[in-house]
């Protein structure tokens, strides 16, 4: 039988035996990210290993580097919660001085990026370091025991935003770090999801190839923190795209008038004007995304909270210049 080649390199930079929970979406995201990065480095500099990684404390740091073992097969440094971007800037400056070709990958979770590492990230983007910042967004501090972060979506249960008689769980809207990063007018900013790995790999390669800073925010499932079934990790991430909860967009050079949006699929009707997506009519209600997750279980007793979440999603799409229609589930 004929040999078939996989769509991505078979080189591994993320070795098995790490301590991530079964079904971890973030582990899959990092595996794909490093593969895509090495492919991009091979195409740009002819050396697949021309990259180094600086990683902030977080789930993926804790599970990958249990002393004296490491799951990384690339030069990797663990730094404190707040300074992955700062450390990556330093490595990049040193590489420049040494005349070494390559690019630095900084990795942080949503807590390490949206809350604690925000200044370092902003500084790195503003100083135009040649670094790709990858934020894996599992929407809470999963490593320390599921505390809320500013990236936690409205209505989600966490241990520090418990729902009850007078509370609906997290009561503030999600902070979109990708939009903040794009406001620095950096060459490339994108959101991706583990639910669409080919799109994620394409964006990661594009980010690795641009000259200057780039920011990629990838949505990945956490079965432990989201209280979702292990095997549905990828399916739930895909439902987030198909129901409109998670937008896939690219912003180049801070040009908010020409945001490239990836059609969500899932039967959604897309209206274009001059090549640009201006309206999306989603066919799947967001309840389909919320239902398999235990962290949103209490919302089904308070339908007005789900309506509020719908309004917030609409408002977020409006920032991207897209009018969306989100259906309600059929009775």
């Amino acid at each position, binding site marked *: *039988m*004929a*040999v*078939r*080649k*996989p*769509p*991505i390199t*078979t080189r*591994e930079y*993320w*070795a*098995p*035996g*790490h*301590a*991530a*929970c*079964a*079904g*971890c*979406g*973030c*582990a*899959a995201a990092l*595996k*794909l990210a490093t593969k895509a990065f090495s492919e991009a480095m091979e195409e740009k500099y002819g050396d697949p290993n021309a990259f180094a990684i600086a990683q902030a404390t977080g789930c993926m740091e804790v599970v*990958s*580097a*249990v*002393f*004296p*073992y*490491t*799951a*990384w*097969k*690339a030069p990797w440094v663990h730094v404190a919660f707040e300074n992955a971007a700062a450390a990556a800037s330093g490595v990049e400056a040193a590489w420049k001085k040494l005349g070494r070709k390559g690019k630095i990958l900084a990795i942080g979770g949503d807590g390490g990026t949206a809350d604690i590492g925000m200044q370092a990230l902003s500084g790195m983007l503003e100083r135009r370091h040649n670094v790709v910042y990858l934020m894996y967004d599992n929407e809470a501090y999963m490593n320390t025991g599921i505390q809320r972060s500013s990236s936690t979506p409205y209505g989600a249960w966490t241990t520090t935003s418990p729902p009850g008689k007078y509370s609906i769980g997290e009561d503030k809207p999600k902070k979109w770090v990708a939009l903040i990063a794009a406001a620095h007018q950096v060459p490339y900013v994108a959101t991706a999801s*583990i639910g669409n*790995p080919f799109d994620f790999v394409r964006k990661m390669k594009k980010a690795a190839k641009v000259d200057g800073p780039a920011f990629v925010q990838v949505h990945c499932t956490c*079965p432990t923190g989201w209280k979702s079934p*292990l*095997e*549905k*990790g*990828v*399916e739930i991430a895909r439902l987030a795209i198909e129901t409109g909860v998670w937008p896939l967009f690219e912003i180049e050079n801070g040009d908010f008038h020409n945001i490239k949006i990836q059609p969500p699929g899932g039967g959604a009707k897309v209206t274009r004007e001059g090549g640009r997506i201006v309206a999306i009519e989603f066919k799947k209600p967001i309840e389909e995304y919320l239902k398999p997750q235990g962290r949103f279980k209490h919302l089904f007793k308070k339908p007005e909270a789900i309506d509020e979440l719908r309004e917030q999603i609409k408002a977020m799409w409006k920032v991207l210049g897209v009018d969306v229609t989100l259906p309600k589930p059929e009775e």
Partner: protein
Amino acid sequence: MAESPFKADIERVQKEYSEKMTPGAIAYIPGSSVVNKTGSWRVFMPEFNRDKCTRCFLCYIYCPEPAIYLDEEGYPVFDYDYCKGCGICANECPVDAITMVRETK
């Protein structure tokens, strides 16, 4: 059957780490976590049907471990030493070539 791409790493870690502690707390062997056989975490085990497989590589792409590598022809090979049995591969397989069965020990 293709050989595990991590075999050489396991041998190196077992040889070097058993003799001395790493100086300066540096994990100097890349990918040394391969000595942790996480397969013991598993409750359900993926069973692969080679005849149904269309080699779309989706299981290979989605596996978070990665406990799936490819043989010479491009078919997935399941590494039961590391598979934690999450079942993402079986759930995503478009032709149902992977089924999860309860582990018997």
